[in-house]
């Protein structure tokens, strides 16, 4: 065990934890932020995606020691009022069914849109193929990412 300081959503957390523990469990069980999900534990499903210094990472395989000193953003910290363009698009298109995978989907999509403000279907498929949705909301994910891109561009121009 070791003393570890984590910055999650601009808040400092002092943890006494195993540095080998995946970031996912610190976020969920220690910081109590339950929006980030456990799906597979082996970086296959994307339910646990968070941002670490702006990059999308799979928190289920990211050791705590690697997250120390970095800025971690979870779904709870993506926007103040559930109004990031991706979140708004998800709401307009009514993407989620069970909803369990969508924290990860949204966090992945947010990075895609930052790096590629106008992605094609192929770009979306490439960027989102790491996120499984068992309810099969994929077509709506594609549609919502296009919509979010439009919204983002309007905001940028506006």
């Amino acid at each position: 065990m070791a003393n570890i300081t984590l910055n999650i959503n601009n808040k400092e957390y002092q943890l006494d934890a195993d540095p080998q523990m995946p970031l996912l469990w610190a976020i969920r069980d220690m910081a109590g932020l339950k929006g980030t999900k456990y799906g597979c534990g082996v970086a296959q499903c994307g339910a646990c995606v968070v941002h670490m210094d702006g990059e999308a990472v799979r928190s289920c395989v990211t050791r705590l020691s690697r997250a120390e000193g970095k800025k971690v953003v979870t779904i709870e910290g993506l926007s103040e009022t559930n109004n990031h363009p991706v979140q708004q698009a998800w709401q307009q298109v009514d993407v989620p069914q069970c909803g369990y995978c969508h924290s990860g989907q949204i966090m992945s999509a947010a990075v895609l849109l930052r790096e590629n403000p106008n992605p094609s279907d192929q770009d979306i498929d490439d960027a989102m193929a790491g996120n499984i949705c068992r309810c099969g909301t994929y077509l709506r994910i594609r549609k919502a990412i296009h919509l979010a891109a439009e919204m983002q561009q309007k905001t940028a121009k506006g």
Partner: protein
Amino acid sequence: MHLPLSRSNLLFYPHPYHTKMSLSRRNFLKVSGLTGTMLALGYYWKADAKDAEIIKATDAEDFGVELNAWVHINTSGKVTIFSHRAEMGQGVYQAIPQIVAEELEVNLNEVNVVFAKGDNKKYGSQITGGSSTVRTAYKNLLNLGATAREMLIQAAANKWNAPKTDCYAEGGHVYHRPSKKKLHYGELVVEAAKLEMPKNVVLKKRSEYKLIGKPLPRLDTWMKTNGTAVFGMDKEIPNMLYAAVERNPRLRGKVKSFDDSATRRIPGVKDVVKVKMGVFSTYREGVAVVADSTWAAMQGKKALKVVWDDSGFEHLSTDVIYKRMSEALKTKEGLSFKKQGDPNIILKYAQKKLDVVYETPYQYHACMEPLNCIAHYQGDKLEIWGPIQAPDWVQDFISKEMNIPREKVIVNMTFLGGGFGRKAFMDYPHEAAEISKAINAPVQVVWSREDDATQGPYRPGMMYRCEGVVKNGEIDAFKVRLAGQNNDHWRSGKKGEPNRSASEGFLKPYYETIKNLSISDVPFETPIPTMWWRSVYASTNGFAYESFIDELAIEAGKDPMEFRRMYLKDERVQKLIDKMEEVSGWKSRKQNEGYGMAITECFESTVGQVVKVSRNADGKVKIDHLWAVMDCGWYVNPDTIQAQVEGSIVMGIGAATIHQVTFKDGKAVDNNFSTYQMPRINDIPPIDVYVMDNEEQAGGVGEPGLPPLAPALTNAIYDLTGKRIRKLPFNLAEV
């Protein structure tokens, strides 16, 4: 999932009627967390009545009955509706309020939805399966909303001393037409609650609906975009510990001994206990590691050394299972499910006949939220929180297994991160309850993905032998024998009857036109636990029946769509076929395009799908487009239907072309998504969904979109390539 037809088949089927137990309104409000003066209505079933009766909460005690599907309106006009069913993505959280609010005349943003606790004496059956919530409850819910509305209108009329006919309700208010005065529902509930219940309220016509039939956004979406929706995995209760359990990888069997010395050295590990959980009629054993975090519990589990006693049951492998099914179908006639005419005689003397075998794999539910459950054992009572599809079954099961009075077992539903049938099982809550009792503390048991994937129960693997004769362009004989595990037999231990789902998926109008037909079930057992999987036997039967119809059509030299028109004389099905033809461009197909279709029936709804395939530049077959037409009769939300059909198709693509559960030496081989591959965004073609408009009895929505996918796809591949695929899953890239 399948709602039992015969109650005696099942050990734990809830009693559908309500016993005469009194419920005091005060107690109910206390339990439900609602306070204050309000109008509260529910409905109840008289033991001898077919239809539910609506009753006021204040009268429930006098009547000595239990109410269900409560609607409450408080003095600020806020409406609370209890959902007695689980929300696992299928949209019940939206459908129930959308139905009630329509007749109640309130805006959906005035409605708050609360999950009811498990109690089938109060809420009726809560098993969320068989795509049954709307189709079984909608008439009662409409009546409930309308009754409350009429009472509120009457209350306003009384206040204004005006005739009721001059008043009407809209948007949570009652208006007085002549004077344009209005009162908010909140101002009327006290008065309304004192009124007599109106009888025979008039329901709106479908053309008058403002909410029903509209693609309104789901009420739970916003919580699912900012991480605030609470799934079982997210629930926390004070002083809760975490547990991970090492269970027998051979699905059955017992713990012989275990060494926990390494486990106990792991920081955070608090205790290690042996645990037993009921799996319907059998038990499964494991060793639970209890810790102060999920991670520590999982680490502790890895360090365990368990010796299993695997005696007393066979350690099977997939090839052996299918070889035995195949042998059985070669030699046995099986138990007759349906017989008309004499197909055997025709087959015996036919010069030419089709005799083919279809094969479908075992499947894993693979909910994105692995199983988990919180239990808090407190001596004389037990409370459960979790992603649970059948809270009332959990209550009954645990009460019986742990000898705790039923009313002292409190079962709370959270949101479910997928269910698909798996979370209608009582094993994981029971296990959590036993661990909590053993350690005398509240505990959350978290299943790893590997636990979830390798422990079953699974959709049973099936084999179908289909024989047929075509004469003069028509079906002269049609004979289907199926072999595969029977979920009912496995659960109840009762054998000797054919699988009651032997024709699930097959359209009934075929019985009217195929004169010589037989369907039988060749009983088949393994020690592998099996369970409902989305659309249940229709998901496998549909592949066999609708592939075989296609083969017969081709044998008859007929266009597969025309052939189905010939045999499916039902008016609704004819309209459905017309729609399929219209939207898919079936007739205007080009060369180098393969078109396939299938129509199946599942939980009172009929779905037809057309699949278009072609070859990539590299020669590999790809799915270009999918059209689905759903006839589910009276429906609530077309956007939900579209979403459910899209999702069913995606799940169908996975089961047809990507994954299967295989067994080796009695163990499930694939334990995570690295080898148990899932359909991903790049596997999904464009899908167009159409919903038939009619006012027939409502059918299911969550499952019926799945069964037609596999046969429509393989029929399309045959059309393109001349290659008939009879075994699932198959690899599209290798066709």
